């Protein structure tokens, strides 16, 4: 097991930068998820770690060693590919044993190790079959087993669950989490599915267009996104973004949005850049938009779409200035399309962003647990 470090890593294809100035430290035993949309550079970064691509600039370290010049076989990493990359002409046993055979491990030892891993992953019955005869989930487990047998310093997984159906995916997620805790391995995992990232990771590294946007624990990423991209990418349904203004009233900063005024915590507030002229973007998660009685502070809105999910209901409504808000209503809410409702906000969890730089205007607080405590003032 080992720690991994990216130091100012760039990967350029001609003029196009697939990865730009990536600096990331991964601790020993972490389950780090590289999360982002396609083209953000996450798979390229993983492949550079594996040795399948060479960084244009920068240093990559595994276990304290600089590995840039080392070929994959010398880095002691194991990789599970998106397509599983099983050897089609070998049996399951042959696939599992490949890495050991290549290292001239004595045959009885290979046999024993293969059977151990096979039983751990439930593959014992399938040892003599070929990949073509296996289901997707079985193939995935063989690929996983092949990696496990090597006992490498780092496990690399490239979207291993994306080819599985939903039910299997949930099951494999649980198995991977269980495996991580039992084997206590350093895992670098690439995915575009934010649900996978949130449930499995010890930390998530969100990437966008080759840059690292934010690295943090899942809850921190959810509660304190560092920019607009992270805020909108993590969390389903997407965070609501509305326009607002940041002004000074009696020497205290005040956020105006949707006809309401909120006082942010001045200790955490950054001033927006001069170009923005006090205009800001405010993010509100759907669960922080609530139905309120008519006399409470809030906005009037007309319901456009009602999506009952069973456990809750998603209500999309439009307010006077043409902004739409998505809200999480309790299950079995008697809301209908076209109805006029009144929506209030949980102002404890407002996210403020600079409209030009997209960066969050709220600094992270040094003590975890402290949140905004604004006052709402009715207009």
């Amino acid at each position, binding site marked *: 097991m080992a720690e991994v470090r990216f*130091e*100012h890593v*760039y990967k350029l294809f001609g003029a196009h930068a697939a990865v730009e*100035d990536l*600096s*990331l*430290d991964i601790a020993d035993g972490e389950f780090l998820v590289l999360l982002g949309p396609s083209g953000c550079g996450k798979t390229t970064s993983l492949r550079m770690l594996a040795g399948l691509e*060479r*960084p244009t*600039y*920068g*240093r990559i370290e595994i276990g304290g060693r*600089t590995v*840039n*010049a080392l070929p994959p076989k010398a880095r002691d990493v194991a990789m599970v590919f998106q397509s599983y990359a099983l050897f089609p002409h070998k049996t399951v046993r042959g696939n599992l044993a490949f890495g050991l055979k290549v290292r001239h491990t004595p045959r009885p030892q290979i046999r024993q190790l293969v059977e151990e891993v096979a039983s751990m992953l439930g593959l014992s019955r399938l040892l003599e079959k070929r990949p073509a005869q296996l289901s997707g989930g079985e193939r995935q487990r063989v690929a996983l087993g092949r990696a496990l047998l090597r006992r490498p310093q780092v496990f690399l997984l490239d979207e291993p669950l994306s080819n599985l159906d939903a039910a299997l995916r949930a099951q494999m997620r649980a198995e991977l989490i269980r495996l991580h805790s039992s084997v206590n391995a350093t895992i670098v995992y690439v995915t575009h599915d934010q649900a996978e990232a949130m449930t499995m990771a010890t930390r998530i*590294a969100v990437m966008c267009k080759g840059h*690292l946007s934010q*690295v943090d624990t899942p809850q921190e990423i959810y509660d304190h996104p560092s920019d607009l991209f992270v805020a909108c990418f993590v969390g389903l349904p997407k965070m609501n973004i509305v326009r607002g203004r940041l002004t000074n009233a009696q020497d205290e900063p005040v956020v105006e949005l949707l006809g309401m005024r909120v006082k942010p915590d001045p200790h955490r507030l950054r001033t927006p850049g001069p170009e923005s002229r006090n205009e800001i973007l405010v993010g509100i998660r759907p669960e922080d938009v609530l139905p309120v009685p008519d006399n409470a502070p809030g906005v009037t809105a007309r319901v456009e779409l009602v999506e009952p999910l069973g456990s809750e209901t998603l209500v999309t409504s439009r307010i006077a200035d043409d902004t739409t808000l998505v809200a999480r209503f309790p299950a079995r809410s008697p809301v209908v399309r076209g109805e006029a409702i009144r929506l209030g906000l949980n102002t404890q969890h407002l996210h403020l962003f600079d409209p030009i730089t997209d960066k969050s205007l709220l600094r992270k607080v040094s003590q975890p647990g402290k949140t905004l405590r604004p006052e709402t003032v009715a207009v």
Partner: protein
Amino acid sequence: MDRTAPATSLQKIVIPYPRVSLADVLGNAVLALVGVAFALPLLWMIFASLDKNAGWRIRLPNLTLENFGSIVTAQGLQPFVNSFYLAAVTTVVATALALLAAYPLSRRYVPGKRSVTLLILFASGLPVTMMLVPIYQMYATLHWLDSRFTTSLFLAATALPFAIWLLMNYISAVPLELEEAAGIEGAGTLRTLFSVVMPLILPGLCVTAVYNFITAWGAFIVPLVLDSTPEDQPGTVAIYQFLGAHGMIQFGQLSAFSLLFSLPVVVLYLLIGRSFQGGFAFGGGVRG
């Protein structure tokens, strides 16, 4: 914790890689050696054609163009004309008939279609030149011997199976919906073939035609057997006759002749080479 580099200091760390390995160097060297070995015979021919006193050995030529000059006489050019005639007629007949056959076979319902298709592939693998005796006999009975035209017909017949196979593959790549649309508009089979399908497979058609041409251009034993009039000899037979001639073989002239004779085929291959290379991807079978 993560480390975010401050925007001002864009340090670009550069780590050198081992550039070449021994295996790479050896591999390239062996390949280059093979290339030289393969080029030697071709080089000889080129040098000899330019050489005043060409011999068997390869050497730098006493430059001259007389060898080429001696070809451009009436007798010198006749074999080229004959080869062109044979190849052209064969190509036209074979490609046209192949198109007519490939279309229904790959689209329409034909009883036993699958077996017929495999039969066609099977036929293209037969040692065709071994049908020469019966075809000679047939031609003799029909008084079809010693004619360039009838010789081309047989060449076309032997080229037909593989040409059908090639075109069938190209036709199956055309979406069926286009033909169905044409059918709804009232087009008959022939019209659909010529107005809809043919334009879309034009590249494939060209590849097939050029392949047929190249094959017919190199035909040797068929014209040798079926047409013995000296004026009808194609370039292949002419080269052979020169070699078998008693007395001094004019290597210079023969090289010049061979070079010129090879040129059309090489040029044609350069044109379609790229598309035909795709056809080499068997995936386990021929153009699967």
